[in-house]
């Protein structure tokens, strides 16, 4: 265990989002022909990512690393999915996400009292040799990339740990993702509200 993973955010709530998956972004070498992360049918090599279906810690935030659903999907293209959340007070929504060229769009936070706010979702490019544009300090970086017919060595794509602030200090109930098919989401975790002074 690294020092970083030992410093996991307390009380974080990984949220299962598999019911919204509609894209296969991670493949094993033997099924790389079925990858479809981007429009060229590239995919991330499973062998170079954490075990699917397990719990991982990325930059001190725990996530449920996606397992394939019944249709073989392991991530979603943002298309206005409404994700129900465990009701609670949160400060941050953390995501494991990647974009086909960097992009941004507002998502909408739905609160238990019926109020709704837009907040920006910004995700950097998954493409190899491309640094994070939006200041994401952490990510999962592969060494190779899967093409339908071959493995491209030394050309590693990335997924990023992105975050969205929850500015309203009331109970959050759901989020509605933007309609932006360039942006893919693999996992989502809520970080609970930290009352002012609690960490001091």
């Amino acid at each position, binding site marked *: 265990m690294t020092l970083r993973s030992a410093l996991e955010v307390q009380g974080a709530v990984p949220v299962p989002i598999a019911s919204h998956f509609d894209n296969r972004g991670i493949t094993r070498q033997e099924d790389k022909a079925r990858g479809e992360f981007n*429009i060229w049918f590239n995919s991330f090599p499973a062998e170079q990512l954490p075990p699917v279906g397990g719990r991982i810690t990325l930059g001190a935030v725990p996530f449920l690393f996606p397992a394939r659903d019944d249709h073989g999907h392991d991530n979603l293209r943002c298309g206005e999915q409404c994700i129900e959340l465990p009701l609670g007070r949160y400060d941050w929504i953390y995501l494991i996400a990647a974009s086909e060229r960097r992009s941004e769009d507002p998502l909408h936070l739905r609160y238990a009292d019926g109020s709704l706010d837009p907040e920006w979702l910004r995700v950097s490019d998954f493409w190899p040799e491309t640094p994070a544009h939006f200041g994401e300090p952490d990510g999962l970086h592969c060494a190779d990339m899967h093409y339908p017919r071959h493995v491209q060595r030394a050309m590693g794509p990335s997924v990023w740990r992105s975050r969205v602030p929850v500015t309203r200090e009331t109970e959050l109930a759901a989020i509605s993702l933007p309609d932006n098919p360039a942006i893919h989401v693999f996992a989502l975790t809520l970080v609970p509200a930290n009352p002012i002074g609690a960490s001091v």
Partner: protein
Amino acid sequence: MINPSSHVIEAVPSWRYDVVGCLWTSAGTLLGFHGAPILETLGAAWGFRHDPAQLRREEYYFPCPPGASLWEAIAPYHPVRSTWREPADAEEGWAQVRDEVLAGWPVIVAADNFDLPFRPAYQDVHTNHLVVVYGFDEARSTVRVLDAVPPRFDGDIAIKELMAARDSNNPELHARDMFFTNRPIANRWLEVEIDTAAFPAFDLDTLRRTIRSNLDGFRAESSVEAFVGAGGQRRYLRDVVVRLRAGETICDELFLVAGAVLAQTALHAAWLALAAQRFDIPRLAVAARSVERIAHHWSAVRIAGALTRNGEYEPARLERRFHVLVDDHGRALDELEFLLPSL
């Protein structure tokens, strides 16, 4: 005089900006080689032009105004020009590039990635790409190639591999031969002229004149043939939706158009941000970020357009994206217009 059998040009820089393709990376390399500032040159222009008759299935597609060369289109405020040279065959194509390298000039050549061993598309996907050639060794039958598009490559391949890539017919053979196929490479290479000494200074006067000119360009009336300026962009986006609703295939066209606009818009946002920092103008940084937002719209459009191929993305969704893009675009132009008198 003995004709050398090998030569490598020294100090050929590699340059890339994250959302751009080979047109811009190769231009950056040549600008840098000639001592010209790269972002200050490639990021200055911002506009919209689409001439359906001019659309070319190339990774390096960029719409050119009538009479303007490719480099004059991407860097209209700087003394640069390009000319496509079209040799008769592969042998003449290599001879011409060899002569340029011997003369000390790195050369931008068109090539099919299918035949380039360092590209992921090697022996897999046909496409129409640009790389920079800057050396050769005939005793080893190799040529020195720089390609800053990931996976970045700077090394030697066989001369015969480069010649095959340049002589390719670039056929469309399977489902992933998309967007940039069906246009023979034809051994073309790009002759460029760069008058570095005559480049304008990157100063406040240049900043004002450039922004003014870009804004005037967006206010230009569309010609009959082409969609030009903000009005032309609005008309074009409306036209795409109409044609998609009528059952027309627009995915390849929109992917090409969006890729070109995305690259130029992102570079211009970076140019504005550079100016804001250089001249300490915080409000210009805000305007730069508004332009960057437009680039991020085009990231979404590029993929949405591609997904119309199989009906995964419907016309109504595309139309809604276009409405927001056009609104945000108008606001970004207004911000720059508002800011300009105070610069």
